[in-house]
């Protein structure tokens, strides 16, 4: 396979990029300066070398712990559970949430072989249990899809016996949509209007 074909194929695998856009991007890179293309290649390399999940919450970071987990000003009695690290970014974007996060790494989907063991649920329970009673509330901010909802139901059943308050984002978020497509103000309202499950 030629280098042009190889890069085109890799780009076309990205979300929202079809084969035509991928081809256009490749020719754009070839037409532009070599230094620009090298800088892009190096930046992508650094991205995958340096960035990894936070040892505590699973959000992306270049340190051992992410900026949120390191910040002494954050409210440690509050944990917001999300499906993906991208959701952390969306909620941080609202500037409304002052607690910590926990990234599950997906949602329950038995059809795809994803049960509770395949998600970061054990570490979440450890954080709640091992927090010496400091965690007062867990907000379940899984996607409003049927899979996200089932995941929230499962977590609620598991967390409630630990004596922690469990809440769910208010239904301002349209059913079947992903958090990443929800605009900031809708998300902020959903957070403010969260309810006990």
């Amino acid at each position, binding site marked *: 396979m030629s280098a042009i074909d190889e890069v085109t194929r890799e780009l076309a695998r990205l979300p929202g990029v079809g084969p035509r856009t991928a081809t256009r991007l490749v020719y754009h890179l070839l037409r532009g300066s070599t230094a620009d293309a090298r800088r892009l290649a190096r930046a992508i390399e650094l991205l995958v070398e340096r960035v990894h999940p936070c040892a505590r919450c699973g959000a992306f970071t270049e340190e051992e712990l992410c900026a949120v987990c390191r910040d002494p000003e954050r409210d440690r009695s509050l944990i917001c559970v999300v499906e993906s690290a991208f959701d952390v970014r969306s909620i941080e974007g609202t500037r409304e949430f002052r607690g910590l996060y926990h990234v599950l790494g997906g949602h*329950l*989907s*038995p*059809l795809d072989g994803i049960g509770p063991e395949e998600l970061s649920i054990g570490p979440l329970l450890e954080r709640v249990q091992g927090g010496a009673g400091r965690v007062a509330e867990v907000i379940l901010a899984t996607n409003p899809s049927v*899979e996200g909802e*089932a*995941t929230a139901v499962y977590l609620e059943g598991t967390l409630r016996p630990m004596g922690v308050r469990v809440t769910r984002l208010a239904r301002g978020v349209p059913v079947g949509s992903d958090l990443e497509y929800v605009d900031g103000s809708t998300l902020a309202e959903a957070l403010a209007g969260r309810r006990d499950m």
Partner: protein
Amino acid sequence: MHLARLRLQGFRNLADVRLELPPEGIALVGPNAQGKTNLLEAIHYLELFRSFRGVRDAELVRFGEAFFRVEGVVRGATGGGEERTLAAAWQREGARKRVTLDGVEPERLADAVGHLGAVLFTPADLALVNDGPHERRRFLDIVLSLNEPGYLGALQRYRRVLGQRNAALREGGAAAIAAWDEPLVREGARVFASRRAWIAGVGEAFASLHAEISGGEPAELVYLPALPTDARPDDAETFDESLRSALRSSVDQERRMQTTVVGPHRDEFRMRVPNGGRLRDVRSYGSGGQRRSVALALRLLEARTLEEQRGRAPILLMDDVFAELDEARSERVLELLERTAVGQVILTAPRASDIRLRGDRLPRWSIRDGVIQMGEWGP
């Protein structure tokens, strides 16, 4: 509203053609196996974007062709004289389907269905009566998806939850299974309630349509939601409660069978007609004539629902419907159609003498070996 123009390329045995269709419709005459049903299939494709015969798109492409394309221009879709263009194409390479509304590809296929506003009558409709509950659920789902906003979305979500829950029943622990109950209850109750409301709402119309076709026989539609008999709610609002408790009480059976045993995916509705002095299930007790009357009444009901919902007469696509009806029933159906069907009618028949609709005023077209001609074929 009527189909004003139709363009066909590469569709089954039909020759590539551009047709101008009159607002009152046409009667297409031709011996069997010339392509009459294929034409109705092509037109109906613009309603659901899949074949009403249940075949894969690949089978619709003419032998040796790379793709098929069907394009229709509907006039008066919003009451006035404005036109709307519906098009669908499918190509063998990559098995790609492209559907457009006025040249624009809708975000979801679900947004494109139902814009033609057509109801199809075929001899195969007898399956609605004779076959298992699956056929009748499919009928309900299509009618409701086309006529009730939000139904298709709820149904699709229900099917997804059901698939997830059944997978959890095969693999998961109790908590991992129970997690799917609430989503299942919410979407399932919605589907139950819509089906029940529709069946209750059309009960009288069904009885009167059936009486007209059969020459005065009573008939009734009965909805049998897949819930334990003692748990069927009287009130549509409480379907969620009923489904929730039915799920609870069938836990053991579900674990054993590894599948969800209650819920709208197992629904049934029955049509009852007179037999031995009382109303009985037509599927078990109906005569041949009763079965045909009931199947026709269901399609006419579909047409009526569409008309009430959109405020416009639907396009009736009728595939050789009188062939298997006895003389008296045919006569009464013709009368009924003369009186009630004010929209476009596209009907097919093997012989010109079979067509008496609209006092013979429907323009006669003919078809031979996939070639459609205005007027009858010469000697």
